[in-house]
C-alpha cells in the first residue's frame, strides 16, 4: 500500500530524535563498558553457560506452555461470545501490565506450599513447586502467555471467516477447519506471538526470583545471574547483559515484519 508523502513538523522530528537517543544511550553504555577483551572467556565460563542453558530450556518450555493455553485462549476470546468475556480478557492480559514481582507474589500465594493450590498439591503428591525449575517455567509462562493471546486474538478477529465457512460447506468438521484453515491463516501472527512470548520469558526476572528463588543450575536464569553478578563481578554481569540484549535484538529484527505489518 503506498501513501502520498506527508510532511512531519520539525519539532516532532526533533522530539523523535531525542527519543531515539534515550533508547540508544543505555545500550551504548553497555557497549562501552563491556569487557571486550575477555568476552569469549567470560561467555564460555561455566556460570554463564549454566545460566544460559537454563534460560534456553525454561524459556522454550514457557513458550510451549504459552502455545498450549495461549492459542486456545486467543481463539476463544476472538470467536466465542460468553458472559464475562471482557473480564477474562482483562485477567489474561493482566500480567503484561502487572509488576512481575507482584506476579511472583501471587504465584507464591497460589502455588507455594501454603498456597491455595500448592498446599493441596503438597498434601497429595508431597511435591512443592517453589524453588524448582518448574517454578521458573510457570513464572515465565505467566508473564509471557499474554503476548501470544493478544496476537492470536487479533489475528483471528482479522479473518473474515469466508475460507472457514467454505471449508465447512465442503464437509470439514470444526476440528479440521481449525487445524487446516484457521491455524494456517494465522500462522504468521502465531509465529510472531510465539517468538515475542519466548523473548519475554527469556528476560523474565521479578516473578522468577520471587516465586522460584535463585539457585545456580536450578533456578538461576540469565537475568537472575546478571542481578547476582552485578554485586560481585561486573564484567560478567555486563557480558551476560550484552548476550541477552543481542538475543532480544535478533528476535525483534527477525520478526519486525510480522509485528508492525508488512511494508
Amino acid at each position, binding site marked *: 500500500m503506498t501513501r502520498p508523502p506527508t510532511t512531519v513538523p520539525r519539532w516532532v522530528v526533533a522530539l523523535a530524535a531525542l527519543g531515539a537517543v534515550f533508547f540508544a544511550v543505555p545500550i551504548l553504555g553497555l557497549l562501552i563498558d563491556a569487557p571486550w577483551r575477555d568476552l569469549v572467556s567470560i561467555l564460555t565460563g561455566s556460570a554463564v553457560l549454566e545460566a544460559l542453558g537454563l534460560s534456553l530450556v525454561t524459556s522454550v518450555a514457557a513458550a510451549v506452555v504459552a502455545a498450549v493455553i495461549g492459542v486456545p485462549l486467543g481463539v476463544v476470546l476472538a470467536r466465542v461470545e460468553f458472559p464475562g468475556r471482557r473480564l477474562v480478557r482483562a485477567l489474561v492480559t493482566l500480567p503484561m501490565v502487572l509488576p512481575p514481582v507482584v506476579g511472583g507474589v501471587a504465584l*507464591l500465594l497460589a502455588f507455594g506450599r501454603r498456597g491455595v493450590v500448592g498446599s493441596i498439591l503438597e498434601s497429595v503428591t508431597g511435591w512443592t513447586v517453589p524453588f524448582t525449575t518448574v517454578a521458573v517455567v510457570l513464572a515465565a509462562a505467566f508473564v509471557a502467555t499474554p503476548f501470544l493471546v493478544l496476537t492470536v486474538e487479533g489475528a483471528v478477529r482479522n479473518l473474515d471467516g469466508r475460507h472457514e465457512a467454505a471449508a465447512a460447506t465442503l464437509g470439514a468438521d470444526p476440528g479440521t477447519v481449525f487445524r487446516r484453515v484457521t491455524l494456517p491463516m494465522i500462522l504468521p501472527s502465531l509465529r510472531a506471538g510465539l517468538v515475542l512470548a519466548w523473548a519475554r520469558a527469556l528476560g523474565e526476572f*521479578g516473578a522468577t526470583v520471587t516465586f522460584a*528463588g535463585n539457585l545456580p543450575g*536450578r533456578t538461576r536464569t540469565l537475568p537472575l545471574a546478571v542481578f547476582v553478578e552485578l554485586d560481585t563481578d561486573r564484567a560478567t554481569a555486563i557480558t551476560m547483559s550484552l548476550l541477552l540484549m543481542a538475543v532480544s535484538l535478533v528476535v525483534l529484527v527477525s520478526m519486525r515484519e510480522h509485528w508492525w505489518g508488512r511494508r
Partner: protein
Amino acid sequence: MSLRRPVRAVAPMVSVAVAGLLVGCGGGDDELLVFAAASVGDVAVELAERYEAEHPGVEVVVTVAGSATLREQVRAGAPASVFWSANADVVDDLADGGFVDGEATPVAANGLVVAVPAGNPAGVSDLGDLARADLTIGWCAAGVPCGDLARLVAAAAELDVAADTETSNVRALLTQLRADELDAALVYRTDVVAAGDDVVVVDPLEGSPTTAVTIAALDGGPDDLTGHRDAFIALVAGSDGRAVLDAAGFGAP
C-alpha cells in the same frame, strides 16, 4: 519532602536514580544519605530519626539493601555520605577504590543462626540438618556478607549445605521464612530478633565465625555535609548507638 523510611532497593540502577532524585530535589533541609546493609537497616533508621531529632534542619535518608549492592552503587557514583556495611570486607573494597574518607569503624559483631518458621514445621534440630536434601533451605549468595559468612560457618562445620535458593540480601530469606516457604535458613541472629515471633532459632551456632559490622565515611557525599556525616558516625559508634545495637541483638565489636 519527608522520607524517613528506608528506600528498599530492588534493582541497583533504580535506587541510584532514586538516591539521585532524593538529593536533587531536596527542599530546604540538608539531606544526609546513609547506605545501610539489610541487616542493620532497622537500627540505621532508628538512629537516623534520633539524629534528626537532635539536629533540626537535617534529614537523614537511609537506603537499605545488600552491602554488596550498595558497594556497587557507590562505585557507580551514588552520592552517599555514610556507608554502613554488614562486614569489613565490603568497606575494604571501597577503601581500595578510594571511596572511603578516613578510617572505617567496627561498631558491632554479628553472627549467623539456623532459623526456622514459627512452630518449626519441618522439625529442624541443628546446623547438621542443613545438609538434608529433603528440606527446603535458603542462604545468602556467595560474595555478599551473609553469604560469605555462611560459607565460613559451613566450612568450619565441614558441612555441605543442600541449599534451594540464594538471596542477595539476608532480609529476603527472612521474608521466605515468614511465608513458610523455607524449612530453614542461615540468617543473622539480629534478623530473628527483628522478625519477632514469626521466626525462631533452632541452633544459635555458638562459637562459629562472626562478622564485623563496620561503618565508614564516604568521599562522594556533598562537601557541606561532612560535619553531619562525621557526627552521625560518632552517634552510631558512641554509647547511644551501642544501646540501640545491643537492643537489636548485636554483639560488641
